[in-house]
């Protein structure tokens, strides 16, 4: 059974079906196809051989043989967790926007298209196919922002798109360069990882890929396309953007830079780590100053993803495991945060922290969810946010990067705690303001939306082996390949 193709294209099929049938069925069709996709992902996990560090469930046939483009899909431990995250958050987003009645048909079709593209990014292993999905996600994302976004949507959605496109074309340039290098001559990403490119070539191509992926992550100072987008996007857009699209950047670096260009990655490791630390400090400091909750979350994402980048730069087993866990946990937690902030916004029509004091008193369940998410995010041991950052710090310390980097990152962790506690102090506690007094507490569907994410955060925090058992073999293999570049 071509499991990966099904997982990738089932949402697309759903979009076509939803387009063909009347508007009132759209949300049920969407939910149905997404549950089916999740079912297939469950099958994938059940059949996945955890001890195998290589690729599994491979589907390979020629797509355009004249120019050596294949249809190649496979997963290893790294991608399988990311696909799960993508499908899970997509479903959560649909639940979260269940009552959307502004052009609901188009809305749900776009969400399905988005899921299809995101799933595809993580399973495609031919460079051209990868690039197809890599760009694909931008189109639904653009329309989601441009139509359902906040006041400044038209400008911001375009800026986001152009920004992402700039990153993408750098990657395209890198892909062409690798293909035309005498050592390359294939788009097969598995094969390319076994080729040995000349060192000088690796150095500049690594930089291309770094900038291309950094725009997606986003790494400071390339975050400006994202931070506005997070603020202006509708809740669903913010959740998928923060939860999954950012992860495609770190995933790309782990899939492309480390195994294919190990020498280049070593050459730039210091630079990448320095930029990552810059992102951690910058993101956390700026987040501290933001009264706008969504803006704060956007900058906190810059900070948290900086940890993942630091882990990738370090390249040790611990650090890479940490980067993976962090990527997953950040997807779940930040998704949850955006979701809850979105719920509050829908009720109070403001995102400004000073106007939102006392949500916890007025709406205990909503406040509780926000508090839980904030505590997860600040890295309290026992919840998911802690694991990744801890592993990254240990891994970075073990690596041959200067010890100052993990120290800086540790300070960043502290700052992260500061702004999150500030949010809890102001928004969850405090005396309800006039606006807050009018809001109603969470409905059952809100709880059903946020509940799974909270549960996952707790499960990973308590027993991170659930995740690591999938990730670790592949990451160990990856760290070995990276170490060859020394």
């Amino acid at each position, binding site marked *: 059974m071509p499991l990966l193709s099904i997982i990738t294209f089932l949402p697309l099929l759903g979009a076509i079906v939803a387009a063909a049938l009347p508007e009132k069925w759209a949300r049920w069709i969407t939910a149905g196809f997404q549950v089916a996709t999740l079912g297939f992902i469950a099958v994938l996990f059940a059949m996945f051989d955890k001890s195998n560090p290589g690729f599994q469930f491979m589907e390979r046939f020629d*797509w*355009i*043989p*004249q*120019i*050596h483009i294949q249809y190649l899909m496979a997963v290893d431990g790294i991608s399988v967790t990311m696909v799960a995250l993508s499908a899970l958050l997509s479903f959560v987003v649909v639940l979260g926007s269940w009552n959307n009645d502004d052009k609901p048909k188009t809305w749900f079709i776009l969400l399905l298209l988005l899921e299809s593209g995101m799933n595809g990014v993580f399973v495609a292993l031919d460079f*051209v196919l990868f*690039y*197809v999905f890599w*760009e*694909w996600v931008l*189109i639904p994302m653009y*329309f989601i922002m*441009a*139509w359902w976004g906040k006041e400044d*949507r*038209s*400008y911001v959605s*375009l800026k986001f*798109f*152009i920004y992402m*496109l*700039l990153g993408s*074309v*750098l990657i*395209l*340039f890198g892909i*062409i*360069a690798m*293909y*035309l290098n005498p050592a390359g001559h294939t788009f097969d990403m598995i094969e390319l990882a076994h080729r040995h490119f000349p060192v000088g070539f690796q150095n500049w191509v690594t930089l291309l890929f770094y900038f291309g992926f950094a725009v997606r992550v986003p790494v400071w100072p390339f975050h400006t396309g994202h931070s506005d987008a997070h603020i202006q996007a509708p809740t669903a857009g913010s959740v998928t953007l923060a939860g999954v699209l950012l992860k495609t950047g770190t995933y790309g670096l782990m899939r492309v830079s480390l195994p294919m260009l190990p020498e280049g990655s070593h050459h730039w490791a210091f630079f990448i780590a320095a930029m990552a630390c810059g992102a951690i400090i910058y993101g956390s400091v700026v987040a501290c100053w933001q009264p706008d909750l969504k803006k704060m979350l956007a900058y906190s994402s810059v900070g948290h993803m900086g940890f993942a980048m630091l882990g990738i730069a370090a390249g040790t087993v611990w650090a890479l495991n940490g980067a993976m866990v962090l990527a997953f946990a950040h997807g779940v937690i930040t998704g949850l945060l955006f979701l809850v902030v979105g719920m509050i916004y829908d009720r109070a029509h403001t995102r400004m922290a000073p106007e939102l004091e006392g949500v916890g008193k007025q709406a205990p369940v909503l406040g509780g969810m926000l508090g839980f998410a904030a505590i997860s995010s600040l890295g309290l041991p026992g919840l998911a946010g802690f694991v990744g950052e801890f592993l990254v710090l240990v891994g970075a310390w073990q690596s041959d990067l200067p010890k100052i980097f993990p120290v800086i990152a540790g300070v960043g962790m502290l700052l992260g705690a500061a702004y999150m506690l500030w949010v809890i102090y102001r928004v969850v506690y405090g005396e309800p303001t006039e606006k807050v007094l009018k809001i109603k507490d969470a409905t059952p569907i809100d709880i059903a939306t946020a509940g799974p994410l909270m549960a996952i955060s707790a499960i990973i925090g308590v027993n991170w082996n659930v995740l690591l058992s999938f990730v670790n073999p592949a990451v160990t293999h990856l760290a070995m390949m990276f170490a060859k570049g020394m």
Partner: protein
Amino acid sequence: MQQFLALAPEALLIVGALVVLFAELYGGDRAAAIVGTVTAAAAAILVWLIPAPAEMFGGMLHFGAGTATATLRSTIAGLSAIMLLWVVARGWAGFNAREAVSLMMFSTVGGMLLISANDLVMLFMALELATLPAYVLIGYAREDERGLEGALKYFLISMLMSLLMAYGLSFVFGLTGTTAYQAIPASSGALGLLAGILVAAGFLTKTTATPFHFWSPDAYGGSSPTSVAYVSAIAKVGAVWAFARFFIVVLPGMKPLLFILLGASVLSMVLGNFVAIIQPDIRRIMAYSGIGNIGYMLLGISSGSVEGAAGAVFFVVVYAVGMVGQMLVVAQEGPTLKDVAGLVHRRPYAAWCSVGFLFSLIGFPPLVGFFGKLAVFSAAYDAGYGWAVAVAIVVSVVSAGYAFNIIRTMFTPGEGTSQGWHGPKPRLRELYGIRGEALPGDWDRPMLEETTTYKQYPALAATVIFVLTFLVIGLGIVAQPLIQMLGVGLP
């Protein structure tokens, strides 16, 4: 006698064009368009049914190059047929259709002959046959001053450059001693280079490449969008093939000449994509977009390799499909940004299809335009023009700017678009030859259905646009057959 049958598609089109010319006698515009559609479609199919000899008329025509010539002849006729089917439904967007259809068919024959031209005289004749009707098509709106001005500009520049090209061809004849395509001797030195430059200048003009692009924005901007759909897209396919083939067969490996083409390519890409952003009229946007796209195409030709040439041809074919689609949408909805504002609420399918065309034009995967770009970029990179590819890749991002100018207007009218914007500043207007006040308001008119006496069949027009969208997507996902037939490969 048997072998002349290979020209049956072209002959059929000529007969069809003559029949169409007398459509007054048997039913007028719609009958003309129907005859045109049927003959063009029949020609497109006939190309495949009649086996062509390798050469004809003592080598004046050439049907070799694998399946490429047949594919391109069929493509040109087929695209014309698809477009004429739209004309059946919509008319020539407010003008008399019969002469326009006839002219378009003559030009189509010229394009098909360009594909098989294998002789200097044949090349020139076919090129002129392809462009002469285009002048008339561009000036078809004869009450419109701007249209006439554009057409005159087109005619004068294009004619001048044709003559220069003929001058260059005479040098080639002098160097090789024959009018048949033959590589000029390696020892021809400066004279060979001069011949090459003159011929290239002619081709650059016909394909609207910088620095000979000046006519195209004015010509397109003043004419009926339906004419633009043909002239800017289908008419270029034959010219590009002839261009690429001439440089491979007659002027192989002339490094300085290739550098000149590379320079023209980079200039076209940069100028076309940047200037397209500030245009208020979609015809002008697409004219500049065409300049930019021809720049990408030239990257392929300037690489001097067979892969590059094949890539360039593939690129222009897929460009033509997207361009025809986009211009037909414009033709039925109105040519300025103001006309298409909020199109998604008025006619959702047209807006969504337009997104498909525009994304294909800017090379967004998996639409077919992406594979065209991949082919020419690879060829240029392999030829050692890494920096030019870098430029091309950066301006690809810029090209999203004009595409989104249109998309934003269609989908989110009035939000940050150029609604309140009244054309470039006076100085700039002068520079670009834009006349009159406040361009965006010029065409403030109701929808096509309400203005023309030609009975409209919106469903048929929609079908045509769907077919073109389907091609743009389908040829991308199943790109293999077209790539194989055109002999495209990566270096």
